[in-house]
Structure formats: structure tokens, C-alpha cells
């Protein structure tokens, strides 16, 4: 199928009012969700997921992608106005955004955040369109040993870079892998940790686990301290961002966008490291480096560009390889599965219309983000005023309905509650939840590919090193481990 044919096929599935309305609504939900501290883009995507069940696949996925993109930008609004990042990725925006707000330039900082976010979003989407297809065609050569090596590499980097401690990340990933073993064995069909309960034979419901891990702990945390969220919002002020500001920061925005694209396309790194790297590079190269940290608009632009540059790029490994790039894309993979789609190289052959439909939707999303973001900046006052002590019970009720709706099964609600307490324990003991969830998703794939490899080779482990692709991923895994261990050594020595 030629590029034009694929594009036309994509247009045929996406060119409908429902699809674009879902994308627009998703961005609105995401901006509001990201702007409410404690709700986060991740939780917003997780809570929107059940509403996609009744939608067409493309409409449902565009809704979630809209929430994702809106949520990443929305997180910068409270970061600037109340010094509380709506999402962890917005932490770098505080460094210069809040000092600007303190001197009455919040409107200017938010305007620059929006312009930088939209520019980075366009760059990221273009990177996705350019590279995903190429990577998928390369991945068609992958067999079980190659996929095993790839997933192992993804898990290593996810466990290693999320959180302060490699060991806590590794523990989180191992617990996720262990939980993924619940259910019938993939080869022999025997019971594993099912306790004879038919509800557990298909394994634990992925959506119950993810909502339990990411939404319920916030509700439990509110029970522990109901007043922890109270903060003081700054006024927008009268200064607005100008084209001269944008032109002055343009280099940093483009650099940050490329940093975001590069880091986003590596599974597990995520938006926060990208934002900080983009910020530090902008400071290093800027003629105004002494103003960074005191309210320099270029700092806001760089961190937001680094942050949003990730959003499209995380979809590259998801669509091309079927490996989620971060927690949010791990949730979005759930939406694909619910609609009977399996992201990965075969999707570029079997569902090319959906792939190109998503590409078209993503390009349009940058325009929608600009429109919604402009309004959201002015309307944050109302979002900030939503009483959290009413919002959280509403989230709890929404979780109950949403999780039940997946399989019409009350057992899943119990799984969600149980995982909520596990997630809260992990929160208190500073164990990152992202490796747990991603390992829970990738666990069956890892085991399945390992056992298929063993079946292919009559249990000869040499098959796991059978060619250049496996060598490449094993080498990357080794380099990642060495880099992480060296980093730990440096930190211990400091």
C-alpha cells in the first residue's frame, strides 16, 4: 500500500465529527486533569479509559491521546501558579515559571509554556510519523528471541531510571512480573496462584490493577492528610507572551523538542528527565544563564519543550514494537487491547487505516491543544477552586463504575481496592509504581517469548543470542546496567 493509499485509509476512519470531538474533549479533560494537583495526567487517562469501551476504536484511542497531550500541558499551569506540578514532568517548569508568577508575570510564563508545548508537540508528532513505520518494518524481522531481548532491555531501563533507587525500581518491576504470573499457564494451561477461583484464571484484570495503582493511592493519601493539597494560587498578571519572547527562546524550544523525541522514544525514560535535560542544556547555552532559576522565560520554554517533546515519541515504541514507552502509553495499550488491536509491527500491515488515522488525529491535536490551552490559562482559577475533598470521592465512585464496566465483574472492584493499598504502600516507601505496571503488562510477553524461544531451540539458551538484533539489545541492556551502577557509585561517592 502506497503512502497516499495509507493516508486515504486513515482519513476514511478518522474523518468524522465523533473522532475529532473525542480528540477535542480528550484535550479538555486532560488539561483540567493535569491542572488539578494530585489528579495528574496518568490518573486522567486511567479514569477516561472505561468511557472508551462503547466507542469506535479510533475514537476511543484519540480520546485517550487527547487526554494524554492535554494532561502533559495542563500540569504546567499549577506548576507556575501554585508551585505544585500537576504532573511530575512539570517539575522543571517550576524553576523559572513560579518566580515569574511571583513578580506578576504568570500570564507571560503560561503563554510561553503553551507556545513551547505546541511547538514541541508538532515536532514530536512528526518524529512519530517518520520513525514509527520505519521501526515497525524493521521489527517485522523479530522472532521470539529478539522480542525477549527487547522486552528485557525495556524492563531494565524502566526499573533503572524511574525513582531514586535502582533496587527499589527492580523490586517494583519484579513484583509486577510476579503478579503477572497469576492465571492459567501459557503453555500447559495449569493453574498458577488462582486458588481455584475462576475469576483469577484469566489473570488479574489489567485496568483494575492500573486504576488501583494510580488512582486509589491518591484517595488513600487524602484520607491520611485531607489538607495536604491546600496552596495559594498567583494571579495571571497583565503581561503576555510576545512573538519576540518566542523568537528568543526558539532555539531552546527546538533543542528541547529533539531531546524529548530522543528520550521519549526510549521505553521507560519519560517526560521528567527530558524536561530537566532540556532545561539544563538551555541554561548551559543561553547568554542569560545567570537569570535561570530567577524567572527566565527561556527556562520555561525549554522545560515545557522537553516535557511535551516526549508525548508523540513515546508512541513510537508502542505502535512499532508493542512496548509502552511510559506509564500513560501502558494505559493506552489497554485501550488497544480492549478493542481487539495488538500494537506492534503487524498493526502496520493489518490496521494501517487506524495507524494513519491516529497520525492525522495527532497532527490536529496540536491545533486543538493551542486553542484549549489558551482558554485553560484564563480559566485555571475555576479549576483550582474545585474542592479536592469532593473531587476525590467522585474519583472513587468513577473508579468503581469504570473497573466494573470492563468485565461486568465485582471481583475486579475488589482487585482494584487491594491494588490501591499496595500502591499506597509503595508510595509511602518510595517504590516507583511505573516499573510495576509496565512489568505487569510486559510480563506475559516476556515469559511467552522466552518459552517460545526455548521450544524453538529444544531448550538451548544459545538461541537468545542468535543474531545481531539480539546482540544489539543485550549490549544495550548491559550498557544500561553499567551506566546505572556507575551513576549509583558516583552518587554514593558524592
Amino acid at each position: 500500500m502506497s503512502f497516499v493509499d495509507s493516508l486515504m485509509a486513515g482519513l476514511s476512519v478518522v474523518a468524522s465529527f465523533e473522532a475529532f470531538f473525542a480528540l477535542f474533549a480528550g484535550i479538555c479533560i486532560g488539561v483540567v486533569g493535569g491542572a488539578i494537583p494530585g489528579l495528574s495526567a496518568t490518573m486522567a487517562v486511567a479514569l477516561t479509559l472505561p468511557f472508551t469501551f462503547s466507542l469506535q476504536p479510533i475514537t476511543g484511542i484519540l480520546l485517550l491521546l487527547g487526554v494524554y497531550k492535554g494532561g502533559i500541558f495542563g500540569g504546567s499551569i499549577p506548576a507556575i501558579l501554585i508551585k505544585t506540578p500537576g504532573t511530575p514532568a512539570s517539575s522543571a517548569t517550576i524553576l523559572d515559571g513560579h518566580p515569574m508568577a511571583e513578580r506578576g508575570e504568570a500570564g507571560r510564563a503560561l503563554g510561553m509554556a503553551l507556545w513551547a508545548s505546541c511547538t514541541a508537540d508538532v515536532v514530536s508528532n512528526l518524529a512519530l510519523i517518520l520513525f514509527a513505520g520505519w521501526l515497525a518494518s524493521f521489527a517485522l524481522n523479530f522472532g521470539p528471541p529478539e522480542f525477549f531481548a527487547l522486552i528485557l532491555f525495556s524492563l531494565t531501563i524502566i526499573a533503572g531510571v524511574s525513582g531514586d533507587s535502582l533496587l527499589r525500581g527492580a523490586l517494583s518491576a519484579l513484583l509486577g512480573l510476579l503478579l503477572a504470573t497469576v492465571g492459567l499457564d501459557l503453555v500447559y494451561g495449569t493453574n498458577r496462584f488462582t486458588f481455584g477461583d475462576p475469576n483469577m484464571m484469566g489473570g488479574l484484570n489489567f485496568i483494575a490493577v492500573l486504576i488501583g495503582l494510580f488512582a486509589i493511592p491518591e484517595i488513600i493519601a487524602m484520607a491520611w492528610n485531607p489538607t495536604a493539597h491546600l496552596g495559594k494560587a498567583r494571579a495571571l498578571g497583565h503581561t503576555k507572551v510576545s512573538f519576540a519572547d518566542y523568537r528568543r527562546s526558539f532555539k531552546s524550544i527546538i533543542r528541547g523538542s529533539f531531546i524529548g523525541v530522543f528520550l521519549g522514544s526510549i521505553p521507560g525514560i519519560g517526560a521528567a528527565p527530558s524536561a530537566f535535560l532540556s532545561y539544563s542544556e538551555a541554561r548551559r547555552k543561553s547568554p542569560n544563564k545567570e537569570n535561570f532559576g530567577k524567572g527566565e522565560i527561556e527556562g520555561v520554554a525549554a522545560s515545557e519543550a522537553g516535557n511535551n517533546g516526549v508525548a508523540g515519541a513515546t508512541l513510537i515504541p508502542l505502535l512499532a514494537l508493542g512496548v509502552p514507552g511510559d506509564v500513560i502509553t501502558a494505559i493506552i495499550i489497554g485501550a488497544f487491547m480492549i478493542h481487539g488491536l495488538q500494537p506492534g509491527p503487524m498493526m502496520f500491515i493489518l490496521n494501517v487505516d487506524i495507524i494513519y488515522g491516529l497520525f492525522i488525529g495527532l497532527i490536529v491535536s496540536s491545533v486543538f491543544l493551542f486553542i484549549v490551552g489558551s482558554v485553560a490559562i484564563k480559566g485555571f482559577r475555576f479549576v483550582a477552586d474545585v474542592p479536592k475533598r469532593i473531587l476525590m470521592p467522585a474519583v472513587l465512585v468513577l473508579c468503581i463504575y469504570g473497573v466494573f464496566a470492563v468485565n461486568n465483574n465485582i471481583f475486579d472492584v475488589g482487585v482494584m481496592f487491594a491494588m490501591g493499598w499496595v500502591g499506597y504502600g509503595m508510595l509511602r516507601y518510595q517504590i516507583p509504581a511505573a516499573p510495576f505496571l509496565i512489568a505487569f503488562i510486559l510480563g506475559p510477553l516476556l515469559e511467552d517469548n522466552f518459552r517460545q524461544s526455548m521450544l524453538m531451540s529444544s531448550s538451548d539458551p544459545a538461541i537468545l543470542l542468535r543474531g545481531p538484533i539480539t546482540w544489539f539489545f543485550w549490549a544495550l541492556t548491559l550498557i544500561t546496567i553499567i551506566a546505572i551502577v556507575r551513576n549509583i557509585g558516583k552518587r554514593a561517592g558524592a
Partner: protein
Amino acid sequence: MGKSKGISVSPKAIQLRLGIAACLIAGFLTIVGIPGWVSSPSNVSNIVLSPTFWPYTLAALTGLTGFGLLLASRTASPIVDPEMAEVAAAAGWVRLAGLAVIMVLTMFALPRLGMVWTSMIVFAVTAFMFRTRHPIVALICAVVIPLALYAFFAHVAGVAIPQGIFVRLP
């Protein structure tokens, strides 16, 4: 955001507790969990293809990580990070216990009262437990939100929302 939800113990104590917990989990799985709750056919040709191989491998790796955490705890700082420090309040523990009870009761009430009525009660009780400053709004939301969600899931998404045995909605 995450920092304020940490616990007021030192990094050393956190690593130590996690290390002990990981070793206990690994030991429990190896001795009790996997032999008791993972069944394997007797005719498995090779150990790596056995349904127990993967759980045993993961249990061993968990044990290794636990040992790693125990070793790391020896060099970790014994000083509590002031940003992490929080005052342990008895009221906080009571609310946590209260929320746990609400969750357990929800599981019992869902098939009997139905999802809508249970959600209304859960919403109201949780909002008051969180000491809401808007009790009237909370009560209105407690009625409206579960009804709106019922309308969407039952009539738009076609989900068979549990109705309970007392009052049934259209």
C-alpha cells in the same frame, strides 16, 4: 508531590525494611507459595518449560534484590529528610482504617444494594470523612454523580450495572 506522602523514617530504615520484606516474600514463595499454588504436569520435558520455572526465577531475583537492599541499607543515610518528615497523627490512622472498612463494606453492598445506591453512600461517607467544607455540595454530588454514571454506563455503554435487590432503576 510524592515527597510529602513519604514516611518519616530514614533512607536507611526504608532500605532495611524493604530488604527484609523482599527476602520474606522470596522465601515464602519458594517454600510455600510456588509448591502449593502453582501446578505443573509431571511430563514436562525440560525444567525451563515448566510452569514453575518462571515464578521460581522471579522469586530468586526478588530475594537477590532484597539482599541488595539490605546491603544498600548499610551505607544509606540514617538521617530523616526534613521534607519527608511528617507528624504521625492518630486521626490519620483512624481515617485510613475507616477507608479500608468502607472498601470492604462496598464489596458486600454492591451485589445487595446495587452500584448506584452503594456509590451514593460511599461518596457521602468519604466526603464527610475527608472533612469537606462544602457539605451541601457533597450531598448533591453524592446523588447526582452516581446517577449520571449509571445513565452513561447502563444506557450509552450498555453495561449491566448491578441493581441490587431493593430499589431498581429504569
